[in-house]
């Protein structure tokens, strides 16, 4: 499949297709370029004109030389030579010029002048030689001049004004000679010559137009060729890009295929009717069907257990209609060998831009063993909880009754020993409770039950209930001023657990006779509780892992303090679950402040 971005890039070729049209237009509207071509054509004819003049001049000289006008003929040749040299000089100048394309008008005018001069040479010849010769020679001259006039047409046809100037140079003197010769026939001819002239100029004009069209077409074609070369280059560039994109798509496709094949996830592609189009090898392994057997069959009827109501046909119809992905559906499936397994399916409909369903990708994971393990773990936790607590109930209960003196005052040594036993039984119970908490938090099984209550009340209550514990360490709790009222909406019992943990830690690590201060503040809509002790402080190397599990500073003094090393870890998780923060800071004058803050109830 080609990504749409690649497809859309190809469309950028399209706009250049009309470039040819625009260049035809520009060719039509750029007469300078066409004139330059015509001028070029005219100059190319200059050698022909010069050669023709020399040849015809030689023939005329041969024919007329027997007359007595030798000097005149020589003079004519001198004039002709000057004109021809001038014409060749002009041609040379044109060929060397750099302005011949940018300023063709200039060169056009010069050439008109040169052509007129060339024509005038023949007009001069007609005027001088015609009257002085015999009838035969006159006929020869007349025909030759007619030939020269007509012969100029192909030479100067690229510009009819140039031709008109050239022919006028010949015709005007000749007509004058004919009209003043004195013969009626010649006078009639003199009247006809301008028509002949006009006819020739007209032919030149028409040929000129053909030339113009020809050049215009050539320009248009030239532009088109240029455009097509451009277009081809761009196409080549884009084809190269497409190929590159194709290679990338191909590579990522292969990568995806590898992912699909190697991942422990069954992948099915189905059509809108749940008919399997394609499967990966894992699907064959999980469900025990060879791919060839699954392809073409209905995914639901083949794999989903008859009794499972989750992935029914009705459900599928709704799913297809909605066209939205569904994740982690737990479905009861049946393997080919009849074995029941539980799978988690994620279904993703592939829909094109028009909203048509292309196919459905179903990814399934066998969670049977995972579920069994979870069940076992839950049973184990429950058993652990019950089986450990029941004997502890008896132990702690008995010791408490002994220590309470209801059954008679025990001796001093007995009282001391039963107190030790009771304290350590309590410690064991704390450890079990903490372990169960950690397990619940880590498996995500802990459920918080938020309720709205006054945090300051909770803190006061916790202080009261922990007072007896603190007295064991000869430590007092004291609030810093009056605690401000703060309503919060969290799990009360769990927050009580956090406060108790921080209070008991503070008492445990305070020096004998010390005081633990408790303060509360409102910090930007969050309720802050600080518990400040005058303990030894947190050792530098212990700080990074103080909130980790089984964390207790590994020193002789702190080892003596009882505790599971789980309390702070649990407290942190609980506070975080309440969208709060927990931390500690060094206290000015020695000791540590443990604090937490949680969002106040938003009204």
């Amino acid at each position: 499949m080609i990504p749409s971005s690649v497809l859309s890039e190809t469309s950028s070729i399209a706009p250049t297709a009309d470039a040819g049209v625009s260049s035809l237009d520009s060719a039509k509207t750029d007469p300078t370029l066409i004139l330059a071509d015509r001028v070029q054509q005219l100059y190319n004819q200059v050698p022909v004109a010069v050669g023709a003049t020399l040849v015809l001049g030689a023939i005329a000289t041969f024919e007329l030389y027997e007359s007595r006008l030798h000097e005149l003929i020589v003079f004519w040749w001198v004039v002709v030579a000057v004109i021809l040299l001038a014409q060749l000089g002009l041609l040379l100048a044109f060929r060397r010029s750099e302005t011949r394309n940018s300023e063709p008008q200039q060169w056009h005018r010069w050439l008109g002048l040169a052509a007129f001069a060339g024509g005038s040479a023949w007009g001069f010849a007609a005027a001088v030689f015609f009257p002085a010769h015999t009838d035969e020679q006159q006929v020869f001259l007349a025909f030759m001049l007619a030939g020269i006039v007509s012969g100029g047409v192909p030479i100067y046809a690229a510009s009819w004004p140039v031709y008109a100037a050239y022919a006028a140079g010949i015709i005007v003197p000749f007509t004058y000679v004919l009209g003043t010769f004195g013969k009626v026939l010649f006078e009639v001819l003199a009247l006809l010559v301008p028509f002949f002239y006009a006819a020739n100029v007209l032919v030149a004009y028409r040929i000129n137009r053909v030339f113009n069209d020809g050049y215009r077409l050539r320009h248009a074609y030239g532009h088109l060729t240029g455009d097509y070369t451009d277009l081809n280059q761009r196409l080549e560039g884009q084809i190269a890009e497409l190929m590159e994109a194709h290679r990338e798509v191909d590579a990522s496709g292969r990568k995806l295929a590898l992912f699909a094949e190697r991942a422990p996830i069954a992948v099915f592609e189905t059509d809108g009717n749940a008919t399997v189009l394609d499967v990966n090898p894992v699907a064959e392994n999980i469900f025990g069907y060879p791919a060839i057997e699954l392809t073409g069959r209905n995914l639901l009827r083949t794999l989903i257990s008859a009794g499972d109501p989750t992935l029914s046909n009705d459900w599928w119809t709704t799913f297809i209609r909605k066209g939205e992905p569904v994740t982690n559906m737990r479905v009861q499936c049946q393997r080919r060998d009849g074995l029941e397994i539980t799978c988690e399916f994620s279904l993703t409909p592939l829909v094109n831009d028009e909203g048509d369903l292309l196919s459905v990708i179903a990814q399934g994971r066998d969670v049977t063993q995972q579920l069994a393990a979870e069940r076992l773990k839950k049973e184990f936790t429950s058993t652990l909880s019950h089986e450990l607590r029941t004997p502890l109930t008896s132990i702690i209960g008995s010791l408490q009754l002994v220590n309470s003196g209801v059954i008679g005052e025990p001796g001093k040594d007995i009282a001391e020993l039963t107190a030790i036993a009771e304290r350590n039984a309590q410690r064991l119970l704390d450890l079990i409770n903490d372990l169960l908490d950690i397990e619940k938090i880590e498996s995500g099984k802990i459920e918080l039950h938020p309720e709205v209550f006054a945090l300051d009340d909770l803190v006061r209550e916790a202080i009261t209930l922990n007072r007896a514990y603190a007295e064991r360490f000869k430590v007092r709790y004291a609030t810093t001023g009056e605690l401000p009222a703060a309503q919060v909406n969290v799990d009360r019992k769990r927050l009580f657990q956090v406060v108790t943990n921080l209070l008991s830690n503070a008492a445990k690590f305070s020096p004998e006779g010390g005081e633990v201060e408790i303060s509360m503040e409102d910090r930007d809509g969050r309720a802050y509780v600080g518990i400040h002790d005058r303990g030894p402080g947190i050792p530098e190397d212990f700080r990074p892992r103080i909130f980790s599990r089984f964390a207790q500073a590994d020193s002789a003094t702190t080892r003596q303090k009882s505790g599971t090393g789980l309390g702070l870890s649990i407290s942190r998780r609980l506070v975080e679950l309440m969208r709060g923060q927990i931390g500690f800071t060094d206290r000015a004058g020695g000791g540590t402040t443990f604090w937490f803050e949680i969002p106040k109830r938003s009204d």
Partner: protein
Amino acid sequence: MPDRPLVRVCYVEDDEDIQRIVRMSLERLGKMTLEIVTDPLKAIDAMVAFKPDLVMLDWMMPGMDGPTLFRKMKENPATSNLPVVFITAKASSVEMNELRALGAAGAISKPFSPKDLPDQLRSVWSALP
């Protein structure tokens, strides 16, 4: 709040050690009259005979667990109105809430403190309608 003090308590519990501790706690400390039933299957008959003010049920017992026994009590007109306090080693708040949803008057988690037990029961008693 009932107009008489809590005196007669029936406790259904299979663990004999805990039975003894509860007996000492409630009889000696709490000055209550205690009837202990070890076999939950005989519990209802014992209650009918003893006519307790309040019943304490262990959650996990062989033969019949606490919640099942509680439902049976609800079916019997002679026991259906007795206030019930569950004693459970299952500490989770979810399960505590479950118990209250069943209609239990209270729940005390194991291990409980025998020193505090009489007061805990009395506070449940005084909270009754």
